[in-house]
């Protein structure tokens, strides 16, 4: 595998990691607020808090990792995206800031403040939509280079059907992924009342997720035919993704094998996400940046890859420990162990 392919694959894996853990996290914040206004608060908030509290900071690092890695491996992205993304990027930063800090204020500090809960629930739900603008822009058509200066076409973005379908998918899939995970978590925690509630959420958001995915698939066709054709070449990945979806929903419907149900959700998104990513190549930003011409110098690439491997040696055992202590420790999950 060439270094550039290795680089982009590593980054894409981390972005996928972020997609999953952040969706769980953001969706849980949303449901936490939703349960507050629908009066189910006592049933599901404690469970959500038990899962979220130890992990939210780790989630954020996945994003930082992607951001820094992208600039390291493909320095020109800093120039193009940096110049064009000032407003969408700043909106994402503000949402992230509100979400992170009000989450902490509300969980560690002033408990039961409805307004704080609202702030972090709502901002978290919107973050994936704000971040998805990067993927939207990467399809091309929203940036013009005039006299060597990068200019962003705001109107093109706002009037693009493709852009809106992606935003829709981001908003919906967050809730789907999260409720699927919470269903599993509630089941493990033997919290039957919470389980019934989040299971309903999961089933309710499953169909919209598929509809939104299909809309994105077809709207790419109008936006970037080249990419669409490459996606069709890889259509087997999207078919597998759909099959995984069916299996996951079936398990939840039948209330069986809930751990596997969530694993299939992860497969569903993995196949779709990597299918999308693979067909996107070689472009990072169509048509300006591709992974071959805009890769960093070889010395830096080797250094980054080396550090990455050393970093993983540190990271994987630590993450394993975190999961063992909080996710797979039955006593903790059931709330019998607390700080």
């Amino acid at each position, binding site marked *: 595998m060439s270094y550039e392919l290795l680089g982009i694959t590593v980054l894409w894996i981390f972005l996928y990691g972020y997609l999953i853990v952040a969706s769980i996290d953001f969706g849980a914040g949303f449901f936490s607020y939703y349960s507050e206004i629908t009066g189910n608060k006592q049933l599901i908030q404690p469970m959500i808090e038990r899962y979220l*509290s*130890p992990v939210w*900071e*780790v989630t*954020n*690092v996945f*994003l*930082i*990792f992607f*951001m*820094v*890695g992208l*600039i*390291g491996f*493909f*320095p*020109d992205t*800093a*120039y*193009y995206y*940096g*110049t*064009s*993304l*000032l*407003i969408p*990027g*700043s909106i994402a*930063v*503000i949402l*992230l*800031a*509100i979400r*992170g*800090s*009000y*989450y*902490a*204020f509300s969980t*560690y*500090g*002033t408990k039961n403040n409805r307004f704080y809960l609202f702030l972090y629930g709502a901002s978290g739900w919107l973050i994936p939509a704000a971040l998805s603008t990067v993927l939207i822009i990467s399809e091309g058509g929203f940036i013009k280079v005039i006299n060597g*200066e*990068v200019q*962003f076409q705001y109107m093109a973005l706002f009037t693009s059907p493709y852009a809106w379908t992606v935003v829709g998918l981001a908003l919906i899939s967050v809730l789907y992924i999260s409720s699927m995970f919470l269903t599993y978590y509630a089941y493990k925690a033997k919290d039957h009342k919470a389980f019934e509630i989040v299971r309903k959420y999961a089933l309710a958001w499953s169909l919209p997720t598929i509809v939104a995915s299909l809309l994105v698939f077809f709207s790419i066709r109008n936006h970037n035919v080249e990419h669409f054709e490459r996606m069709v070449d890889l259509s087997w990945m999207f078919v597998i993704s759909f099959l995984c979806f069916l299996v996951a929903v079936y398990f939840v419907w039948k209330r069986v094998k809930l751990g596997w149900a969530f694993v299939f959700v992860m497969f569903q998104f993995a196949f779709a996400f990597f299918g999308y990513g693979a067909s996107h190549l070689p472009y990072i930003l169509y048509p300006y940046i591709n992974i071959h011409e805009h890769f*960093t*110098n070889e010395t*830096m690439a080797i250094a*980054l890859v080396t*550090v*990455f491997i050393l*970093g993983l040696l*540190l*990271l994987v055992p*630590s993450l394993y420990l975190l999961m063992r*202590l*909080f996710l797979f420790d039955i006593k903790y999950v059931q709330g019998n*162990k*607390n*700080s």
Partner: protein
Amino acid sequence: MLSVYDPVIFSRLLTSLTLAFHIIFATIGVGVPVMIALAEWIGIKRNDPHYLLLARRWARGFTITVAVGVVTGTAIGLQLSLLWPKFMQVAGQSIALPLFMETFAFFFEAIFLGIYLYTWDRFKNRMTHFYLLIPVVIGSSASAFFITIVNAFMNAPQGFDVDALTGKIINVQPLVAMFNPATPTKVAHVLISAYLTSAFVLAGIAAISLLRGRKHVYYKKALKLTMVSALIFSIGTAIIGDLSGKYLAEYQPEKLAAAEWHFETTDQAPLVIGGILTENNEIKYGLKIPLALSILAHGSPNAEVIGINDLPKDEIPPLWIHYMFDLMAIIGVTLMLIALTYVVGQRLGKWNVHNKGLLRLIVLGGPLAMLAIEFGWIFAEVGRQPWILRGYMKTTDAATTSGHVDTMLLVFTILYIILAFTCVKVIRKMFKNYPAEEEIASRGGNV
């Protein structure tokens, strides 16, 4: 007044704003884990529940500041690309390695902090819980280490060549870029000043409680631990600050000359404190310490120090950084004296170190130390002007050309005000609603 929109100016303002806000939380984020570790370790070794409670309560407040540190850090991370795209393009080629390493340090810290906070009573052996804090201490100091290396590189870039024809960056040597001449003093001074500041902030909190008439020995122990640490860190800060001056004399003479208002190249140069500058660059009302600048710059009273007049005119930073340097150094000496008074008084034992005057000074020390951090950074960053990458790239050439940076400046100002306000409110409430005495009583001595 007619003002023309200039993205460079607004980018500078927005960068300074975000960094000046982030650095408060970053400093606490680097220093407080060290103090928590000290307290927990002493608590376990002496089997003293008060120190354990100290660690527990500090950690609880720490969660809030970490959160704000993380989100403002994410903001600066994104903003560097959004506001300085051309700089980041070059940085990506040459100094991406420490930035990348930093993310691993963050991961490491974040994972173990999560574990640490939620496992207080989970292990039979208390040391197990203490060991979980070590990665947090290493992770936070390592992240400061790596990011400061990036800043050192901006001051003393090396480890790459620029192709004369294409302007492309070639012959990159990542490790040479990382271990540039600015790295040793910069990293050491940033780390130890963060420890110092955190010790003083925590000391200030204990002193406030004592001033309010709480007499519990818990607060006295807190004060003793933090003040002894502060004394050690303040001596370290001054020594390494002195070495930083020697670094400047060697590699960034324009920064030192501007900071000291040193116009003519001379030996036996005096150090000027305070004062004002007349139109003809004469110094009035300043306090002159003979020979001191030669000593700061080269460690010898007879050494020659390059003056502003012998340096390229268009590469001299703004002369007002003089005040930033003075304020930082004066605060440094003040903090050392406060800590020294307490420790000596404590050792002698004849004198009540918990008198109102000294306690008030200690309370003042926290905000003063934080101010010294801000002044120090403003001195270092403005002192690098007009360069963003000294000798290679000017700040004006690096900024974004995008519109609306002014709007973003306004929006972020509002955001930071709200965050600062809520953060203070939440932390105060946290400790007011549950004072230490109550917690000691409710835990029945078992912390």
